[in-house]
C-alpha cells in the first residue's frame, strides 16, 4: 500500500539547513498497524505528514496505492487525501465552531456526498465511537477523551484505506488513552491500515510493527510476535 524509496526532507531557512528525513525507505502493506517511534526531533511527524500527503518530500519517491505521489500538486494531494486518508492528531484539531456531528460530517462534505448519505455515515461513525449522545455538543464542552473519540470518528467516517495518527494519546490520561488505542486496534482488525507516531511504548504494543527513527534515519524495524499474520497485497 505504501512504499518509500530514499525519502528525504530538508528544511531550509536563510542560514540553517536541517535534514529532517534522510533517505528513508520502507514498505507498509494493506491492513498493517505500524508504529513509528523515536526521540523528539527525529523526523517522526515529518514522515507522517509526507505519508499523509500534507507535505511533499525534498527528494525520493513515495508510492501510495501503487502511484508515485511525491510530486503531486496541492490539488492532487487534497483529492487523494480526502478519498483515502483519515487523520487523528494529538491535540484533536476539532473545529471549535462546529458541533460533534458537524465536525464528523466535514470530510463527507468535501467529498461531495449527498446529505442523506452523510447522515447515515455520520450516525454510524458516532455510534461506532459511542459518542452519539454528544452529537450536539461543541468540542470545548467535551473531555479530552471524548474529543479524541470525535476526532477518530471524523477520521473513519469516509471509510479511508489509511489512518494516520500523530501521538493520539499524547494529551489524554491513561484510561482515555487506552480507550482510544482500543478503538484504533478494532479499526485495524476491521481491515484499516494504521500508521501511528508515538512516544509511548505502551501504545506501540498495539502495533504489529515498529519503525524506529533517529536523526531522520530508520535505525530499527521489528515485527512483533503474537499478532495477526501480515496480509499480503
Amino acid at each position, binding site marked *: 500500500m505504501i512504499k518509500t524509496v530514499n525519502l528525504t526532507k530538508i528544511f531550509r531557512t536563510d542560514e540553517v539547513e536541517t535534514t529532517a528525513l534522510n533517505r528513508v525507505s520502507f514498505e507498509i502493506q494493506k491492513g498493517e498497524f505500524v508504529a513509528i517511534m523515536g526521540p523528539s526531533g527525529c523526523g517522526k511527524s515529518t514522515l507522517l505528514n509526507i505519508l499523509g500527503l*500534507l507535505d511533499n518530500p525534498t527528494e525520493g519517491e513515495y508510492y501510495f496505492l501503487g502511484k508515485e505521489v511525491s510530486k503531486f500538486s*496541492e490539488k492532487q494531494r487534497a483529492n487523494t*487525501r*480526502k478519498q483515502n486518508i483519515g487523520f487523528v492528531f494529538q491535540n484533536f484539531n476539532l473545529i471549535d465552531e462546529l458541533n460533534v456531528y458537524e465536525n464528523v460530517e466535514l*470530510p463527507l462534505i*468535501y467529498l461531495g456526498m449527498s446529505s442523506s448519505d452523510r447522515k447515515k455515515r455520520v450516525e454510524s461513525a458516532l455510534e461506532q465511537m459511542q459518542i452519539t449522545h454528544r452529537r450536539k455538543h461543541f468540542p470545548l464542552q467535551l473531555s479530552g477523551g471524548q474529543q479524541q473519540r470525535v476526532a477518530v470518528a*471524523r477520521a473513519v467516517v469516509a471509510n479511508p484505506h489509511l489512518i494516520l495518527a500523530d501521538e493520539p494519546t499524547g494529551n489524554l490520561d491513561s484510561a482515555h488513552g487506552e480507550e482510544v488505542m482500543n478503538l484504533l486496534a478494532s479499526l485495524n482488525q476491521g481491515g484499516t491500515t494504521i500508521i501511528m507516531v508515538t512516544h509511548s511504548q505502551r501504545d506501540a504494543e498495539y502495533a504489529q510493527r515498529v519503525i524506529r527513527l533517529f536523526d531522520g534515519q530508520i535505525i530499527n524495524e521489528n515485527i512483533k510476535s503474537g499478532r495477526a499474520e501480515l496480509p499480503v497485497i
Partner: protein
Amino acid sequence: MILNFLTTALRSLLRQKSYAIINLAGLSVGIASFLLIALYIQHETGFDKHLDKRDRLFRVVEIQNEPGVGEQHVAITMGPLAASLKADFPQVVDAVRIMPAFDIQVVNYEDKYFREKGLYYADPSIFNMFNIDMLQGNPKTALLEPMKVVLSEKTALKYFGSTDKALGKSMLLGKRSFIVSGIIKDQPAQTHLFYDMLVSMSSAESLPEFEWMKGWGSNSLITYVELDRPESRVNVEAGMVDFLKKHVFSEDDGWEYLEMYLQPMKDVYLDSGHIKFQNVTASGDKNLVIAFTVIAILILLVACVNFINISIARSVKRSREVGMRKVLGADRQSLVYQFISESFLLTLVAVVISVGFIELALPEMNKLLATDFHLDFTGNYLFNIGLIALLFIISLASGSYPAFYLSRFQPVRALNGGSGIKGGSAGYLSKGLVVFQFMISVGLMFSVLVINDQVRYIREKDMGITYRDAVFLNFGSGEDVQKFEPMRNEFLVDPRIKSVAGCSFLNGVSGSQGPVFVDDSAKTKLTVRFGYVDYDFFDAMGVSFAAGRNFDRNITSDKGGSVIINQAAARKLGWRNPVGKRFNSVMGADTSLKPEVIGVINDYHYFSLRSLIEPAVYVMNPERFRGVVIGLYSHTNQQEVMKFIEDIWHDHFPGTPFQPVLASEFASGNYKNEQKLFSLFIYFTSISVLLSLLGLFGLTSLLIEQKTKIIGIRRVLGGSVWRITAQLIRDYMILVVIAGLLALPLTYYLLEQQLNQFAYHIDISMFHMMYAVLSLTVIAFLTIVYKAHRAAKANPVESLKYE
C-alpha cells in the same frame, strides 16, 4: 457546503464578539453613510431629468468682459436674441424666453392676495420645448396673446378652489387684469426653474415699461434653445462671433466685449457656480457633489480596510481551522468560497443594520437639508440595484484578500498555528495597512479642521454691513413708493424704531449692472452695480463711510445729482480722492446733471463671500425703490415691534400681503445651504475619522495580542513591562510619522483647491497639520499603551501558553 460555511462563520463571529462588533459596527455605519450620501448625490444629479429633450436643450450664457467687474458669465440675455438665433441658425429648432415677473408683486383673485415666487413671463414655445403637460387649454395659443396667464394645478386650486373653475377667469396680476388661458400639471420638484404661473411674454412686450426688451442693449431674459441634435452646439457656438457682430456690436451704444455660448441643460443645475444672474429657483454645487462622492468612497474604503485588517489579524487564530479543513480535503477554491461567503454574510447583516441606521438618520438629514429623502425599495430602482451591487462589491473587496491569504496556508504549519507563508508578507501587510489607516485618518482629520475653520470664518467674518436688527418690507407695486413717505413718519413714532429707509433691497443694491462714464477726456467707462437707497439706508444697516458724506435731505441736488461709491469702485477708477469727482451719466439719472461723488463707503459684502466685492454706485432715486428697510434698536423685542409694523403696513397697503424679510435670515440665507452642506460634510468626515480610529484600535489590539508570546518570552528573560511597551510604541510611532508624511501633502493640495473657490478664505496653517497628526498620535499612543501594558503585565506563563 454553503450551510456549513455560514454556520462556521456565524459561530465564529459570535465567539469573537468584540471584533465582530467592531467589524459590524464599522461596516454598517460605513454603508449607512455611503447610502445617505448616495441619496443626496442621486438627488443632486437628478435635476431636470423630466425634460424629454434635455440632451438638445441649452441655456444661452454671455461672457461679459466690460471694464470694472471684469469677466463675468451671466445667464440673462437680450429680448430679440431668441428669435434671431432661430432665424439665423438652421440648427436652432426652437427657442424660448423666460423672465421672472419681478414687476408683479401681488396676485389677486376676489379676496385672495398672494405674492407668487414662481411667476414668469414666457414664450408659447415653452410648452413644447419643456414638454409641459397641459391639462386644460390649448398649448399652441395659451400664451400667444397678451394678458394671458397659465396656472399650475396647485395654483389654480389655491385661487379658485378647483382646477375646473379657473379657465377663462380673470385675475389681477399687479394692477392689470389677466385671463386664465390654461392649466398645467405641477412640475416635479427636481427642476432648476420652478414655475407656478406663466404669463404670456407678449404681455410684457405690449407694456411701455418693457420697451427696452425690443433692443439689444439690456439683459434680463433667460433664453433656452432647442437644437436639432446635441452636436450642433459646436456649430452654433462657432457662428456666434458673426452673429454678435451682425446684431449686437453694430448697435451704437451696445456691447463691446461680449461672447456667447450654449450651456447644456444637464449642467444648468449642478455646474453653474461660475454664472451670475441666473434667475433660477434651485442650483447645486458640482464641487460639493464631488467632495461628497470622495468622502462616501473613503468611508466605504475605510470600512472595508477595517474588515480586511481584522480578518487578516484574526487569521492566526483561524489557522488551525484552515489547516484542518485542508487536511480533510478542502482545496483552495472551497476555502476561498468559504471566506467570501463569510464576508457576504457579514456584509448582508451590516447592510440590514445600515438600513436601520439610515431610517434613524434620514429625518435629521431631511430636516437639515430641507429635503424629502426616503428609502424606497420598490420605486427607486437605481438605488436598489446600487444596494445589491454594493453588497457584492463589499463582500468581494473585503472578503477576497483574507480568502486568498488564508487559503494559501500550508496545512501542516497552519495546524501548528502559523501561516506557513514564506517571507513574512503578512507582517509587511499589517504594517502597510496601519500606515494606510493612519494616512486616511490624518488626511480626514486635517480636512475636518480646515473646513470647520473655513465655515466659522464665513460665519463670523465682518461683512461690513449689519444684517441684524433690521427688517425689509417689499412694496406691492410701483405706486406704493408714493405712499412710502407718510408711512415712514408713522413708523418713526415708535421709539423702538431707529430708522426707516427706502431702498432697492436689504443689501442696498439692485439686480442691475451697467456702465458709468467718468467726466474726463479719456471717456473712462466702468461697469458697476447700482444701488438705489435713500438718506437713512447706510445708517440703518450700519455701513460706514471711508470719505465724504451721506445723502442729505436738505441738499436738493442729492436727489439724483449726487452719487456715493464704494471703495472697490474708487480702486477700479484709480481715484485716491474720489469725493468731488464727477460722472457723465449714471443709469436712471439725468445726464445733464453730471452727478458728483459726495461720499465713499467702506466695502461691504452685498453678496456671499464666494464672490469678490464689485464696484457699486449708489443713487438716491425713489422711483427705483423696491421696498423699505426698518432699522430697530438692538435690544428691541422683534416680535412685538413686528405687530406694530404690520398694522401700519395694512393701513397703507390693504391689498398687499405683509411678508417681512428679516435681515438676519437674509444673511444666513446667503450661506444657509452652504453651511448645512458643510455641516453634513463635517459629520460624514467625522464618521470616517471615527471609523478609521475604530479600525486602528481593533487592528492594534489584534497585533499586540499576537505579540503576546514575544512579550511572554521577554518577560521570562527579565524584560520590564515599560521597556517592552516603549519598544512597541516606538515601532508604531515610526509608522505614524510615515503616514503623516504621506498624507499631509496630498490633503493639503486637495484642500487648497477647495478653499480657492471662495473669494475669502482662511489660510491652511501648520497648526492644522500639527493638530491632525498630534491628535491621532495621542489616540494611537493611548491604544498601544493600554493594550501593550495589559499584555506585558500578564503572567508570562499565561502569555506563553496562549500561543
